[in-house]
C-alpha cells in the first residue's frame, strides 16, 4: 500500500520519506461495495486515502436528493477537512467497489503534529493546497453553469480611492478567528503588510488577477464575485477576521474570483513573498496564521459547494411542471 502513496499525484508535494511516515501512521482496512465511508453531517474524525478501489462523493441537496460531486480512486485523498477544521462532513462517500483504504485519525495526526514531526507540516501544507485545488474546481463548475437568476447579479464594482487604514494592530484584538496569532504575532504581520481603508463598492481586484497578496479583513466586509456577462455573481462574503486570496496563493494560478468591498472595510494586505516566508516557518505566529488559513480554505470550499448546490436545486425547483 505504501507504493500507492509514493505514486500518488495528490501527494507529490509531500517528500517521499514523509509519505513513508504517513503510511506508517495510518490504519488499513477494507470497505465493501455499497458501504458508506462516512455520511454528510457526521463528525469528521479522520482523513482517508484510497489504496485500491473506487468510491463516489455525493452531497444531499434540498428535496433530499443526491448531487454527485466526483469519483475517487487509488492514491486520492478524501475527508481532508477533518485535519483542517472541526466541522461536520460535507458529503457522503460510498464505495462503488470493494476498496482498500488508509485511515489517519484526527487525534493521531494532532498528537504527531504536537510532537513536532516534520512530515506532519508537509502533509498539512499539501492538504491546504488540495482544498484550494478543489475550490478552484468547484468555482469552475459554477462558472460553467448558466444556472443563475439574472436578478441575483450585481452591478460591477468600480475603482475607488483607498486610504490609509491607521493602526491595524489594535483591530486584531476582537477577531476570534485570528486569536492564535497573539498580540506579538499580529504586530509582526502588521509590520510586514499594508493597512488600507476601502470604501464600500470599491473594486480591489479583478477575477484573473495575479495572486500577489493575502488580504485580511479587519473591519467591514469584502465580496468575492464571479464575473458574468450581465453582472457580478456573489459567491462569498468575507467578514472580520477572514482571509481572501488563498486559492491563488496556494495553487499559484490567477485568482478565480474578483474582490470588492461589500461594506467600507479596513484590510491588511500581506505581500506574497512574506506569505511564502511564513508558510515555511515554524514560528508560532506563522503556524497560527496557517492554521487559520486552513480553516478559511475549508470554509470557502463549503461556501462554494453550497453556492453550487443552491444553483442546481433552484433550477430543479423552478423546472417542476414546466414543459
Amino acid at each position, binding site marked *: 500500500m505504501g507504493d500507492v502513496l509514493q505514486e500518488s499525484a495528490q501527494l507529490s508535494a509531500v517528500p517521499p520519506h514523509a509519505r513513508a511516515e504517513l503510511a506508517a501512521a495510518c490504519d488499513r482496512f477494507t470497505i465493501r461495495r455499497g458501504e458508506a465511508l462516512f455520511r*454528510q*453531517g457526521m463528525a469528521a474524525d479522520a482523513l482517508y486515502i484510497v489504496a485500491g478501489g473506487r468510491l463516489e462523493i455525493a*452531497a*444531499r*441537496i*434540498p*428535496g*433530499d*436528493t443526491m448531487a454527485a460531486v466526483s469519483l475517487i480512486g487509488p492514491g486520492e485523498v478524501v475527508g481532508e477537512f477533518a485535519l483542517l477544521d472541526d466541522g461536520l462532513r460535507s458529503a457522503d462517500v460510498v464505495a462503488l467497489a470493494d476498496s482498500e483504504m488508509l485511515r489517519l485519525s484526527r487525534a493521531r495526526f494532532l498528537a504527531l503534529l504536537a510532537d513536532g514531526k516534520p512530515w506532519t507540516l508537509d502533509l498539512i501544507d499539501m492538504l491546504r493546497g488540495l482544498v484550494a485545488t478543489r475550490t478552484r474546481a468547484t468555482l469552475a463548475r459554477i462558472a460553467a453553469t448558466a444556472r443563475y*437568476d439574472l*436578478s*441575483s*447579479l*450585481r*452591478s460591477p464594482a468600480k475603482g475607488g480611492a483607498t486610504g490609509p487604514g491607521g493602526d491595524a494592530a*489594535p*483591530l486584531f*484584538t*476582537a*477577531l*476570534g478567528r485570528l486569536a492564535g496569532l497573539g498580540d506579538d504575532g499580529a504586530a509582526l504581520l502588521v509590520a510586514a503588510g499594508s493597512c488600507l481603508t476601502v470604501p464600500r463598492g470599491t473594486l480591489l481586484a479583478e477575477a484573473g488577477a495575479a495572486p500577489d497578496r493575502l488580504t485580511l*479583513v479587519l*473591519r*467591514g*466586509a469584502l*465580496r468575492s464575485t464571479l464575473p458574468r456577462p450581465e453582472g457580478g455573481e*456573489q459567491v462569498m*462574503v468575507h*467578514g*472580520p*477576521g477572514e482571509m481572501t486570496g488563498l486559492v491563488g496563493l496556494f495553487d499559484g494560478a490567477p485568482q478565480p474570483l474578483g474582490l470588492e468591498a*461589500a*461594506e*467600507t*472595510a479596513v484590510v491588511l494586505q500581506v505581500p506574497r513573498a512574506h506569505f511564502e516566508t511564513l508558510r515555511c516557518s515554524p514560528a508560532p505566529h506563522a503556524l497560527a496564521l496557517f492554521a487559520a488559513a486552513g480553516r478559511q480554505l475549508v470554509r470557502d470550499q463549503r461556501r462554494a459547494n*453550497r*453556492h453550487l*448546490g*443552491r444553483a*442546481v*436545486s*433552484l433550477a*430543479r*425547483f*423552478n*423546472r*417542476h*411542471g414546466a414543459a
Partner: protein
Amino acid sequence: MCRILSYLGGPVLLDDLLYAPDSSLLNQTVSAQMLAMLNLAGFGMAAWDPASHEPQAPYRYRTTQVAVFDRNLKELASKLRVGALLAHIRGVPLTSTVQVNDQNVHPFRFDGVPLAMAHNGDLAGFRDMRFDLVPHVRPEFARAISGSTDSEWIYALVASALPDPGAVNAPEAILAAIRSALATIRTVRERHGIDRSSSANLIFCDGTNLVAVRYTFDFGRFAASQMQGSAEFLSMWYTFGADYGLHDGEWKLTGGAGQADSILVASEPLTRDFATWIEVPEYSALVVRNDGARRFAEIHALEV
C-alpha cells in the same frame, strides 16, 4: 436576537413545524444551533389554514410567555393544518430596560394589511433615528405603531411603500417596498452618523407570497467593545421539497427539488442534520411566488 420560521406549501400540521423536529423553532428558545442567546421574550405567529373560514386571513397568536410552557399553543398546534406560516420567537438582551409585552411580539401585521413581517436583528442607534423615519410612514400606519421595537418601524416603512397595502401585492412590489425601506434606513443612519453593524433579516408572508431578506447594514463594522454578534452575518436558511414529514427518522422535505412545491425558510435549520438546507445568500432576498398553478423561487440581489 430572535429566530424566525416561515413555511409555504401543502397543508401540514402546525405541531410538525413548531415542535417536532429536533431543532424546532420552540427548541430554539433555549438551544439554538447558530445563536448564543436565549429567546425568551415572546412567541407569535400568523398561520394561514386553507380549510378555514376566510382562508386568506391568518390565524394570529401571540404571547409573552415562554412558548414551550404554553399549553394553549401546544393544543392548537395539534389541530391546525397550515398552508402558510410566519412564526417568531423573540430574543432580547437580558436587562430590565427592554420592554417585554404583547405589542413587541412579532410578526407584525397592521389591520387591513395582508402582509405580515418578522425580524431577526437590531438597528443600532434606533432611538436616535426613528423620528427621522416618520415622514416615510403613512399617517394611518404611524398611528398603528403600538410597540417600541425597531422591527415594527421597519414593517411600517415597507407597508407604507406598497402600492396597495390593503391588497395582496405582487412579489415585485413587495421587493420594491423592501428596497425602499432599507434605502430610507440607510440614509437616516448616515444622517445620524450610525455605522455600527446592524442586522435586518426579515421574512414577509401574506399567505400567497414569501420574501425572505438576509441583509445587514455596515456588516463587520464595530468597536472592539461592541463586537458581540457583529463578526458573523446573521444566518438564514431554506429548504424545499414535495412532502414535509418524518422520513427515515428525520423531519425534512423530501421528493426531490424537481417535484417540489413546498418551501421552509428559517433563521437556522430545524434539524441538527442540515444537509438538505441551504443558506439564503448575504445581501439577498429569496422570493417565492405563486403563479396560480405552482410556486417559483428566485434569488434577488439587494444593493441599497
